[in-house]
Each structure stands twice: as C-alpha cells, then as structure tokens.
C-alpha cells in the first residue's frame, strides 16, 4: 500500500522514527490512497469513530459521579442531572450519543450492503464490524440498566431471562448472570464493570477494522478494484479529511438537536421511576435500535425458538460474504439486487415499528411475515440471485465512464448519477 521507505525530514524525526516508526504510520494514514468517487455514505466510518470517542469521554466523566449500587444508583443519576456542574449536559450527550451511535452504525452497515463492501477481499473487515456491532448492543443494553429505573430493571429481567430458554442449564446460567435469584445489586455492579470495559474492547477492534481496511483499501460506489495510487485515487489528507469533517458537522447538528431540544424523546418515561421488583411496567419495550430484533423474538410463539431466531438474525450477517454469490459488488450494476435491497430496508423498518407495538392481532401477523422475509432475503434470495441475475456492464476504472473510452459509458454514467 503506502511507501514504507518514508523518511522524516528533521534529524530528530529520523532519530525517533528509526526507533519507533510512528511517523511512518502517520505518513501512511495521511497519504493513504482513497477512491476519488467516495460519496457521503462513506463518511460514517469517521462519524462512528467520533461517536465512540464521545461515549468514552462522557462515560468516563459520568463514572466520576455515578454510584453503582442498587440503593443509590437512581439517586446518583438524579444527582448528576441536578447537582453536578453540566451533569445534565454530559448525561444527555451520553444517553443520546448511544442512539446517534446506532443511527450511524445502521447507515454504515446498509451502505456496505448496498455497495457490496462485505465481499472478497473485505470479509474480515466485515466480520470484525459485526463483532463490534454485537459489542455495541451489549454495551447499550448494560448502560440502559445503570440508571436503575423501571425500564432498566425490567429490561434487564426480560433480556437475561432469554437465557432461561436454553434447555437444562438455562436457569443456572440466569442465576449466574444475576449473581442471585433476581436482578439485584450484584447484577448492577457487574453490568457497570462490563459497560465500562466493552468500549475499550470496541476501540481495539476498531483499530483492527481500520487495519484490515487499509490492506485492500476502500471499496467505492462503482465497486471495482482500482490501482492504488493512481488517477482513480486521492490522498486521505486533505481530501477525505475535509469531506469527513463536513459530514461530521452535519451529523453533530442532528446530535445537538436531540441533546438540546428533545433529550428524552428516544427514551422511556418509565425509566424516571425507580426500579421496583414488585411492579412491572404495563408495556416493556427496548430502546429503538433493538426493536427489529425484539419483533423477531416475539414473532415466534415458542420461547426457545424465539431466542434462536433473534440471535440468528444477527449472526446471519457474519456469513453474508458467503451467502451472496454475486461477483459484482455494487448494487449500481445489479438491477434486481437493488430492488431486493430496498425491500430489505423496508422490511427492517417494519420490524422496528411492530417491535414497538403490542405483540397481538395484526401487529403479530405483520411481524411474522417480516421475520420470514428477513431470513428469506439472506438464505434464499441472495444465494439464488448471484446465479440468476443479469448484471450491467462494469467500467474498468473510476475515471473511464467520465473520460470516455468505454462502450458501456452511457449505462454506467446513468446509473452512477442516480445513486449520488
């Protein structure tokens, strides 16, 4: 990839770099050749890095004031909101930051699905990404438990009870997770510990994710392999840095809107009632970003199979590179896949909607159809489509459709402009 024969200009730089080649790394990151046709959907990697750092910084500061004890957690959160200087701001950034993090990660994942970024040679990047996503869900769930409100308590009860569906050892596992016979203080303290740990695991995996990305380089909207560096690439700095920076600013406007104007709109009012093991709230729902999976869980009438279906819905993504048999990456050149892609997007949104509704009557029926379609998409449509679909001709380079020389010029340009 980048030239490893880089040599710092200054004597001190050379002396340092010969002993620890950090400057070589910095040079690689700034010169890193990037496809010049990357659109704004590619800016979410940078946005996600920002989200992770924001969660770690606000989380560390909250931890200075929060008390992980069943008798004091709820009050300490109220103490943060009312007494701690700017505590309300830090907590609202952290709470809404989780939602923003998931918003960005869903866009990031669906960008990969559209442009086939998970395909060879980028399978490892994709799988690391799925592990990061799983860890994000674990961190978000445990973080939601910490304020020790009614939703915290009952969310923790319902989710940990999912493990009781496992035959024979299920009850033992649940008791082990709880450290008692119900969700209680031992559960809270261990959730706090793990909630603190997981972001750093994610940080490590992000480094691997980017490392694995820098081996083949970025995919791009045309989805073809490009020569690096060449006429088809631009250096990461300043071109991508500026573009990412601008997108980040736009994203922060949305973020700030939630923090300052609607800080509780994504939460649940019941979580401002202290946890009470004697009373269950009338309607338990997870945070919005977990709703599609919750809908899948509830759409299956059997307890164990419901849990299996929910987990499969996530884990099926990890084998996606092998389920999609098409050699063409970008949906731009896959007229049928493009349609199924948008049906899948709609399907997941519908699952999210019915996940927030009571599991009865029409909602239940819709949830079942949408769950079946979700699996149909990955297990039947994608493998078959790779063989049956007649794809459009793919250009030989990024510049080719623009500068001419291709017999398929019109088709490629037409398709590309539609996407951007």
């Amino acid at each position, binding site marked *: 990839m980048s030239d490893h024969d880089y040599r710092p200009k200054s004597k001190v730089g050379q002396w340092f770099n010969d002993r620890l080649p950090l400057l070589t790394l910095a040079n690689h990151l700034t010169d890193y050749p990037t496809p010049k046709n990357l659109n704004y959907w590619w800016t979410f990697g940078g946005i996600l890095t920002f989200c992770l750092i924001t969660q770690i910084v606000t989380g560390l500061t909250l931890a200075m004031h929060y008390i992980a004890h069943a008798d004091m957690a709820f009050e300490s959160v109220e103490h943060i909101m009312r007494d701690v200087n700017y505590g309300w701001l830090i907590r609202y950034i952290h709470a809404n930051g989780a939602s923003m993090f998931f918003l960005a990660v869903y866009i990031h994942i669906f960008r990969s699905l559209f442009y086939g970024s998970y395909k060879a040679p980028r399978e490892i990047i994709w799988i690391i990404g799925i592990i990061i996503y799983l860890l994000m869900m674990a961190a978000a769930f445990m973080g939601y438990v910490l304020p020790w409100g009614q939703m915290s308590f009952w969310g923790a009860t319902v989710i940990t009870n999912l493990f009781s569906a496992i035959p024979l050892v299920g009850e033992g596992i649940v008791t082990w997770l709880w450290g008692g016979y119900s969700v209680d203080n031992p559960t809270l303290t261990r959730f706090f510990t793990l909630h603190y740990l997981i972001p750093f695991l994610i940080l490590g995996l992000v480094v691997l994710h980017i490392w694995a990305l820098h081996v083949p380089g970025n995919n791009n909207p045309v989805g073809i392999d490009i020569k690096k560096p060449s006429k088809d690439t631009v250096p990461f700095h300043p071109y991508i840095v500026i573009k990412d920076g601008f997108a980040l600013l736009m994203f922060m406007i949305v973020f700030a809107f939630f923090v300052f104007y609607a800080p509780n709109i994504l939460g649940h009012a019941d979580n401002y009632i202290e946890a009470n*093991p004697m009373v269950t709230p009338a309607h338990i729902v997870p945070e919005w970003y977990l709703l599609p999976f919750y809908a899948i869980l509830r759409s299956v009438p059997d307890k164990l199979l419901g849990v299996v279906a929910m987990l499969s819905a996530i884990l099926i993504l990890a084998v996606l590179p092998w389920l999609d048999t098409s050699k063409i990456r970008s949906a731009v050149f896959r007229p049928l896949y493009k349609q199924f892609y948008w049906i899948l997007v709609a399907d997941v949104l519908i699952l999210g909607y019915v996940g927030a509704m009571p599991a*009865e009557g029409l909602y239940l029926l819709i949830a079942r159809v949408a769950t079946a379609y979700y699996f149909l998409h990955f297990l039947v449509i994608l493998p078959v489509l790779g063989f049956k679909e007649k794809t459009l001709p793919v250009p030989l380079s990024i510049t080719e459709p623009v500068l001419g020389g291709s017999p398929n010029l019109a088709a490629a340009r037409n398709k590309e402009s539609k996407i951007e």
Partner: protein
Amino acid sequence: MSEKKTKRRDFLFTATTAVGAVGAAAVVWPMIDQMNPDASVKALASTEVDVSSLTPGNTLTVLWRGKPVFIRRRTQEEIDEARKVKMEDLIHPEKDEDRAKNPEWLVMLGVCTHLGCVPLNDKGDYNGWFCPCHGSHYDTSGRIRKGPAPWNMEVPKYEFVNANTIKIG
C-alpha cells in the same frame, strides 16, 4: 536411539500440556464461580411473613430473594373453580390439591414463567392473574391457561410456622 528420544519428548509435551490445562482450569473456575450467588445472598434464603391481617379474597405480595411472592387467601368460590378444572384443559397439568396443600392459602412466586414480569392480580380471562408484558393468563391456582408462558407460576418451599405465620424458603 533417536526414536526413543522423540518418545521422551512427546511424553514431556503431553504431561506439560495436561498439567497446564488443569492449572488453567483451576484458575478460571474461581473467576467464573465468583459470579454465582454469594454467601450473603444465600443467607437471605428464607423469610417469615405474618398473614394474620389477610382476609379471604385478598393477596399479600412480599419480597423473597428479590422476587415477589403472592400469598393469596382464596375464597371458597376460587377454590372450587380451581379444583373443578380438568387436567386435559391445562398447558402445564398440575392439580390444585398439589399446589395449595391448605386450600385456603395459595403461595407462589409472582413471576411470569415467560420472561419474568410480575402478573397482575384479579385480572385475565380465568379470574386469576394476567401478565401485562406478553399477555399470559393464569387461573385461580396460578396455572397458565393462555399466552406464551410455558409453565404454571412456581410454588416455592414454604410452611406454616404457626396459624398466623408463613415461612418461605
């Protein structure tokens, strides 16, 4: 000669790996087991409840091991209703006689066997309990009649210490 040496080396490898694996397991187990209920949690294993103020047709909810326990002093109607149910109508067949030794008193964990919510009293299609989370209906014996819950509400170990006191656990 060389073959013999290889065998001795193999033995060393196997022995070292085996001892190493046992050692690793011995270190890992305490790390896993520390998460199980500790002595102070287990020490709260039993609770004594004064039920003298409970009149027929009312339920007392007490906390035992962090979970609600329903103590229901049933009316004669409720007992009759629970006892006349046919076993084949039940999802999880249990006789009311086995669930409530003393028919007037029904003691059970107030925890829905689906995903652990607390069912509501005097609600549902069977005049017993109704779980608001995912819609499970229980009868006057706390048996599951309709909905996603797989089992009846659990009857814990309990005994009457005297006429007015129940010891749970």
